[in-house]
């Protein structure tokens, strides 16, 4: 059987922040490969570097050194980075982002929020009808509601649907359940799992929640900016 394509490859990534005169090492020597259709969860305590790592993998941030490849092409290689305009194009064509705070536009309806990416960019191969994404996340009955009329779980599902409309190859979800209760956490976990299983989406999930992390096929633990153990199959 043919092995799945490598979507992302990181080699010896480091990230160092300057905080005043002090240098803070956020990531050190991170190497990993993410295959197409893989559901990967990053866990670890606060400050362990999981968000920094996922931001770099999601082309939102640059490493200080190391190599990052997306579908075999260099995005960052030992100090050389792609220009911001190129990174923007990569971000909108390859990634769909979901964050802890949902950032739905309060003056737009759920339907309008989900279709919002199309106001800026419509990728060839994007969903012909953005409401398909809403349907996939079970939001059909909430389309005409404003975000303020939704529960936290519904808002996050709307944010996920919004991330799906341009048919991304990778979903990057950073603490998507950080503001939700246990029941809503499970709801989001199931939604991500279904997207991975049914649509074959590659998912990078950052979470503190070990139960949610169990939705992933592979869990990577970070501590003090390093991967402490190789990913283990959970599902």
């Amino acid at each position, binding site marked *: 059987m043919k092995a799945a394509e490598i979507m992302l490859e990181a080699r010896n990534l480091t990230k160092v922040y300057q905080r005043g005169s002090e240098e803070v090492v956020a990531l050190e020597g991170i190497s990993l490969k993410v295959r197409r259709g893989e559901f990967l969860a990053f866990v670890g305590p606060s400050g362990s570097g999981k968000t920094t790592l996922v931001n770099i993998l999601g082309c939102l941030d640059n490493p200080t050194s190391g190599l990052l490849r997306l579908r075999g092409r260099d995005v960052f290689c030992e100090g050389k980075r792609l220009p911001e305009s190129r990174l923007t194009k990569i971000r909108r064509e390859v990634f769909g982002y979901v964050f802890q705070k949902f950032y739905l536009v309060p003056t737009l309806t759920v339907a309008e929020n989900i279709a919002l990416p199309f106001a800026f960019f419509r990728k060839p191969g994007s969903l012909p009808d953005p409401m398909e994404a809403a349907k996939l996340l079970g939001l059909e009955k909430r389309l005409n509601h404003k975000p303020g009329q939704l529960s936290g779980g519904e808002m996050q599902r709307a944010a996920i649907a919004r991330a799906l409309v*341009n048919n991304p190859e990778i979903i990057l979800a950073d603490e998507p359940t950080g503001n939700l209760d246990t029941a809503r956490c499970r709801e989001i976990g199931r939604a991500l799992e279904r997207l991975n299983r049914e649509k074959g989406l590659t998912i990078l999930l950052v979470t503190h929640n070990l139960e949610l992390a169990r939705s992933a096929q592979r869990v990577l633990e970070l501590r003090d900016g390093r991967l402490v153990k190789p990913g283990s199959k959970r599902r």
Partner: protein
Amino acid sequence: MISIYQVAAKNLFRKKARSLLTVVGIALSAWVLVSLLGFNRGYENALSKDIDNMGFQVLVAAKGCPYEAATLMLKGGTGLRYMKQSVTEDILKHPEVEQVTPMLMQAVFDPNKGEDGSLTAYLGVDPATFPAMKGFLKFKQGAWFTDPEALQAVMGYEAAELEQREVGDSLLVPEMEVEFKVVGVLARSGTQDDGTIFVPIRTLQNIFNKKGQLTGIGVKVNRKADIAALEQKLYDLPDVQVVSLAQVKQTIMSLVSTAKVMVLSIALIAILIAMVGVVNTILMSVLERYREIGILKSMGAMPWDVFRMIWVETVILCLLGGALGVGLGLVLSKVTDLLIRRLLPYTPTGSLIRIDGGLALLTLAAVLAVGLASGLYPAWRAARVRPLESIRAEGD
């Protein structure tokens, strides 16, 4: 499918009170601006119309203050000075003069007029020459008097309305125990004639004991004659001053120019304040949505998309405010007209505020330009937001 323009328009509903106040600020500035521009146009037009409807191009008046003479020419004046009627003959000697008409203005305090009484002005005119010069005046009722010594009066449209008189009615001159019979009521002309009561000049001279005296002589000049040269010649006459149409226009315009400069300054300040208000509103909105803008960029918005979205918000605010201001200017032009009439020493009789489609569009264009300029900085700030900045704030 939603567009950037719809997103921008809906964004303005987030803080409704703030958006509304900004729109009101812009509307007030636009109102001041359109009214000022309308005033500039309307005042000159009304003044020109008043002067053109004089029927004569030059007024010869008794020597005195030139401003007073200008006021006398247009409105009657109160501090009246007199000259001899024989001056009329001297003026007629000049070949440039086509016709002259002597006039005597008299004002009488009428205690029954209004709440506290007020002045009623009578203009004594020569029935042989005045109607010929004022050929454009139409009658609503009756006709001009023909007897130079008759106790008859022709009332301007507004004067007749105010006194509630018709042809055949009597008109009592207070304190003089004299009654005129109304023989004509003029149709509305839109000039100062509407408020005037015309009586035969000799009758007025007799009643007020001003025999052989005039307050002004209207001079109609031959079409091809050089008015300036005639003016020079008339200055040689003793104890008179000559006021030409052009001079009157200039004199009045100089009188109101100070007020215009002041109003223009106020309009500019109002526009600047509105502009600062717009910048503040949009900038606040950008700062409040800093993270959200970052998320928009992460979902595919390019810097130009974000710039356009914020710019459109500014333009919508300015267009709404501008349209409201122009609307206010149109609807309240009568009120503004009344206010200006109270403020200025002299105002012509026609409409002082003239706002037409062109002026409305010009004002909207000016407000739009202000909006475009005001939106530049907030839009530029928003366009520079990087997705990472908003995402970092998510914390790890």
